[in-house]
Structures are given as C-alpha cells and as structure tokens.
C-alpha cells in the first residue's frame, strides 16, 4: 500500500500570483524514507501543511494511508506525527510535561510507547525537569521528534528537521531516522541540504512548487546527461569567470574546492584545449578530472533546463 499519495496538487496562497505548489504528484511506499529536496521557498512546507491537514489544497487529491486529507482529516490526525520546521512545543513546560501533554492529547501515555522513543528520549532524559525553552538546539529537536512519535504514528512528517543543527547532530539525527524506519514507520522528510539526499530511499527534487524529478538518489545521479569534470587552479574566482567565457562550456558551477563543468560536445580534444586556454589566461596548477555527478549537480542541471 502507498502511504502518501499526491495527485495534481495545486495551491496558491491568497493575494499571491505565483503558485506555492504547481501540479505536484508523487507516491511514497510503506516504510519508505522519502526525501523532499529543494531550496527555501520551493514549496516543501506547503506540501507538509496539506498532508498534515493544516491547509486545504486548491485542487488535486492527497491521501495519507488511504485517507483523504480533506474528508478524513480527523482520521489522519490520529495516525500522523508532524514536526514543523520551527520549534513549536510549549517553551514554558518542562521536557517531561511536554511529552506527557502530547501523549494524553493522543489518548496514550509515555509508558505505553516508551520503546519507540527510548533511544532518543534517553539522551534528553537527564534534562526532563528543564523547561523546553531552555534546551539547546539539538535537544529541542530530539524533544520535538519524541513528541511527534509519542502516539506511534504510521507516517512521520519532518519539515526541515536538520536546518540550523550542527553537523554532528545532523548525522546523529539521520541515524535515528534509519532506526525508526526499521520499526516500520514511513517517513517523509524535507531538507535544503543536498548531501542528505543520499540518506533517503527515494527523493523528489522540488523547485518553485514543481517536482523536477523523483527517483532513488542513485538513479537520479545516473541520469545526469553529460560527463562531468572538476576543475581547479590557483585563482578560483577568476577561473570561474574564464571558464564561463570558454566557447565549449555548457555548464559551470562552483562546488567547494572545485568548479564542476560539462562541455557542449563530446570531443576528446576539448580537455586539452581548455587547459591551453586557461594557461593563456595566466592560471597555474590547473587540475582537470572527471567526477561522478552528485544530487546537487543534478538539481542545478534540472533547474537550468526548466
């Protein structure tokens, strides 16, 4: 069974011309860790708010565990867990009180579902008497995840859970998601970080309210149309400018220590021609290697071709 089904969802907020979601359709499988990858303002949160029954789509149909978000919203609220992008628990209640409150709201108790959250809760248990507002960022995130899990949801919606969290905590968090997945909970997670895409079973790349591509991270990178090269020299800033002026260049983007480029044609000589060209432009220590495309390369390529 498909846990989340979206077909032709449209949403335009009142008073705005550009749609937040434009004809979005995809499905996620049972027990799947599905990633929604896209920059800020791509429409990720709007999609989550529709799926968690907080807003209504203008048109189209969305189902969670076979239940319609418009007609069966009451049912959906019982079986989904939602962790919004912004920390939204009661800051003036303690860790324990927040958990107990959300447990009772779902007609359950901390004890009943302790197993599910144990691994996460253990890390914040020493601070259970502390007010939620006084926790560190990573702790808040763990508490929010616990609260979203307290009623043993079938589907978990996590809206940018790792935004503003340090690298170590991010890694830890993805570890937790893996463990939850093994317990049979479907997870829909959004992130603006392309490097996190590889950690998902399947991903959807979203930009300006439109889905550009849906597949496993591996297949998406395999579908990159051109051979990709990484270029480096001593003057990276000037290099980017010079590369873009080279006649054979199709795409050129800065990627950390390297610039990723692809060529218009597949001629073997192009590489050497480029090196000569760069030498003439006073570059030294020029390196040119073939690289495997990452999700970010694919994202930019898809964005440019739109």
């Amino acid at each position, binding site marked *: 069974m498909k846990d989340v089904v979206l077909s032709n969802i449209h949403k335009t907020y009142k008073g705005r011309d550009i749609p937040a979601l434009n004809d979005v359709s995809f499905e996620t499988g049972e027990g799947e860790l599905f990633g929604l990858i896209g920059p800020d303002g791509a429409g990720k949160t709007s999609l989550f708010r529709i799926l*968690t029954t*907080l807003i209504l789509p203008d048109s189209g149909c969305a189902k969670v565990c076979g239940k319609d978000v418009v007609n069966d919203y009451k049912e959906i609220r019982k079986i989904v867990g939602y962790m919004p992008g912004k920390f*939204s628990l009661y800051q003036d209640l303690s860790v324990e*009180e927040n958990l107990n*409150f*959300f447990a009772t709201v*779902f*007609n359950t108790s901390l004890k009943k579902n302790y197993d599910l959250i144990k691994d996460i809760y253990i890390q914040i248990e020493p601070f259970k008497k502390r007010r939620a507002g006084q926790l560190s960022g990573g702790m808040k995130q763990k508490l929010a995840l616990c609260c979203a899990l307290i009623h043993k949801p079938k589907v978990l919606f996590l809206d940018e859970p790792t935004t503003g969290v340090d690298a170590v905590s991010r890694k830890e968090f993805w570890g937790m998601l893996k463990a939850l997945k093994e317990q049979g909970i479907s997870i829909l997670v959004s992130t603006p970080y392309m490097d996190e895409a590889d950690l998902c079973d399947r991903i959807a790349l979203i930009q300006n309210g439109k889905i550009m591509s849906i597949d496993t991270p591996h297949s998406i990178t395999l579908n990159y149309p051109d051979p990709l090269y990484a270029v480096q020299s001593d003057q990276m800033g000037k290099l980017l400018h010079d590369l873009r002026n080279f006649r054979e260049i199709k795409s050129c983007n800065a990627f950390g220590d390297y610039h990723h480029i692809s060529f218009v044609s597949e001629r073997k000589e192009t590489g050497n021609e480029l090196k000569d060209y760069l030498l003439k432009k006073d570059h030294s220590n020029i390196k040119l290697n073939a690289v495997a495309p990452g999700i970010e390369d694919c994202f930019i390529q898809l964005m440019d071709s739109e």
Partner: protein
Amino acid sequence: MRMLIYLLQKEFKQIFRNKALLPMIFAMPIIQLLVMPLAADYEIKNINISVIDHDHSTFSTGLTQKIVASGYFKLVDYGNSYKNSLDLIEKNLSDVILEIPRGFEKNLQKENNQKVFIAVNAINGTKASIGGAYLGRIINDFNADIRSEYLPQPKQNTIPVIKISSSNWFNPFMNYTFFMVPGILVVLVTMVCAYLCSLNIVKEKEIGTIEQINVTPIKKHYFILGKLIPFWVIGMFVFTIGLFVVGRLVYGIIPLGSIALIYAYLSIYLVALLGLGLLISTYSETQQQAMSVAFFFMMIFLLMSGLFTPIESMPEWAKTIAALNPVTYFIEVMRMVVLKGSGIKDIKMHFVYMIGFGLLFNIWAILNYKKTG
C-alpha cells in the same frame, strides 16, 4: 472531558509560571483600585481665587472672609489691580478673579444695588463651571445675610420664598468613591480578562504551538474552552479581590443588593468579554497586533461606558456607541445593585443584553476561528 481537564491543567501551569503575568493578576486590581478612585474625584477643592478689593470696607472684607471660610477656595492674592490678577491667571496660579468695585458697601446700603465682577479661567472646564457656581452661591448667601441684617424683619413674611432642602438618595454623604469604585472594578476585570485571553491565544499562534495542536485529534471546542475557562476563573478571582478586599475593607462599600445577583451577572459578562478576546485573537497574527486592537476597544469601552461622564449628557451618536458597549451595562448593574440594592426585576433587560453580547461575540469568534484554523 478528560482531554479538557488536561488542557486546563496545562493552561494553569503556564499561567502560574509566567513571572510577569502573575503579579499583574494579583496586584493590579488592588493597586489600581487603591489609586484610581482617589484621583477620579469630581468634587472640586482648592480653587485659587484672587480678590481685587477696591472698596476695603467691612462688607468687602466680610465677603472675602466668607469665601475663604467656605473651604473650596484658596486666597492667593488680595490686591487692587485687575492687571495683576489677570497676570496670575495667565501664569495658572489663580483660577477665579473676584472684583469688588469702589463704593461697594455704600451703594449696597444706599441704593440697595451693587454689582461685582467675576472672571473665571475656563481652561479646565469642570473647575471653571463648578468654581463659578460655588462663588455665585456664596455671594448670594452673603447677600441674604446682609439683607436680614439691614432690612427690618417684617412680622409676617410677605414675600413668598421657596426654600430648598435636598437629601442625597442611595449615597447620603455624596461619597464619590461609592460611585467610582464599582465602576472601576468593572473596568479592571474587563482589562485583565480581555487582554490576557486574546494575548494567550495569539501567543500560541505566534510560537507555532497551535499548529502542533491542530495536527492532533484535540477537538476545537475543547481547545477554545481550555483557553476561556482559566480566564473566566481569573476574572471571578480579580473581581472578588476587588469587591471584598479593596471595596469592603478599604472603602467600606457593602453592596445593598444581592451579591449572588452581581456574581450571576459577572459570570455572563465574563463569557461575553472572553468571546471578544477570542474574536480579537482570531483576527490577529501576533501579540503586538492583538494588544493594539484590544487597546483600541478598551479605550472606547472605558470612555463611552458612563464611568466618568454620564451617558445621558452625551450626543445621540455617542449614546448609540455606549449602548453597544458591554461595559456600560455591567457598570450600570454594579451601581444599581451595589448602591440602590436593585433586584433581578430591575436589571432584567441588562441580563438580556449581556446574553446577546455573549452569543454575538462567541459565535462570531468561533465561526472566524474555524475559517482561519
């Protein structure tokens, strides 16, 4: 039902943990009730008078003494130059000028007729009109005194005179606090509840907790009740402190009518008021917005409620606003029950109106809440 209890528990926990809110709930009614009625007093005392005496006779000094002895006036200047006295008025050191012309005593005795001149500083309208009236009365009194002294009293009084004797019903000593305290108490309860209620709900919006609540199976009416009940209780509490602790112990105000009747009205009033708070919160996104809107309504409610100025003397359009103001009705009920001892029959219509307000605000708020939520 169990859900509602948990919501209430959570709400009270949060209120009692709020370090800024708690003193406001407890201390504000006491402090304001102690301070405001003493300041909001219409009885005018200490009117500064300057007397210009061109006559310097027994009569003119007698009149001056009588004015000072009345207790309402303070003699700031006793001279013989109008220019000087006007100067004092311009510097705001004097409020009234009384000019006694030369030959005051002589003319009174010989011609039975004499005029004095009064000039009043009308910047403060109340002080001017009341001060002028006091002064007029004292001069009349003085006039009567010298008449009885100089005119031979006829055996039989041939001139019919209407003698006025008045008694002040419901407030025999015209104690101003008796009139103000019940009204101010209403205003305090109104402010505490309307502000707290609307701010509390908007706070959940602002922090985003309302979204977290909205994705749970909590029913909306439980959530709303969970918000209204705590402030209803707080309203009752604030009112009780005001009525029994401050009203009775400090001002000695003991309601003439039934206390149960006051509380019955209060409980309905609070429902209406909290409905208004809820309504404001559904139209605001941030606490700042809610605060501004609530403040706007509070100002109108206060000034157009008949608390300070009688509604009867307002223009027609203002009377309409006052009639649409729930505070007006509660202040009236308070004054009627506390001072006059009115019963349920007298305030029947007040109940009807308040129930109307309660239904209007709450239904409107819930409809709007559903639309946005």
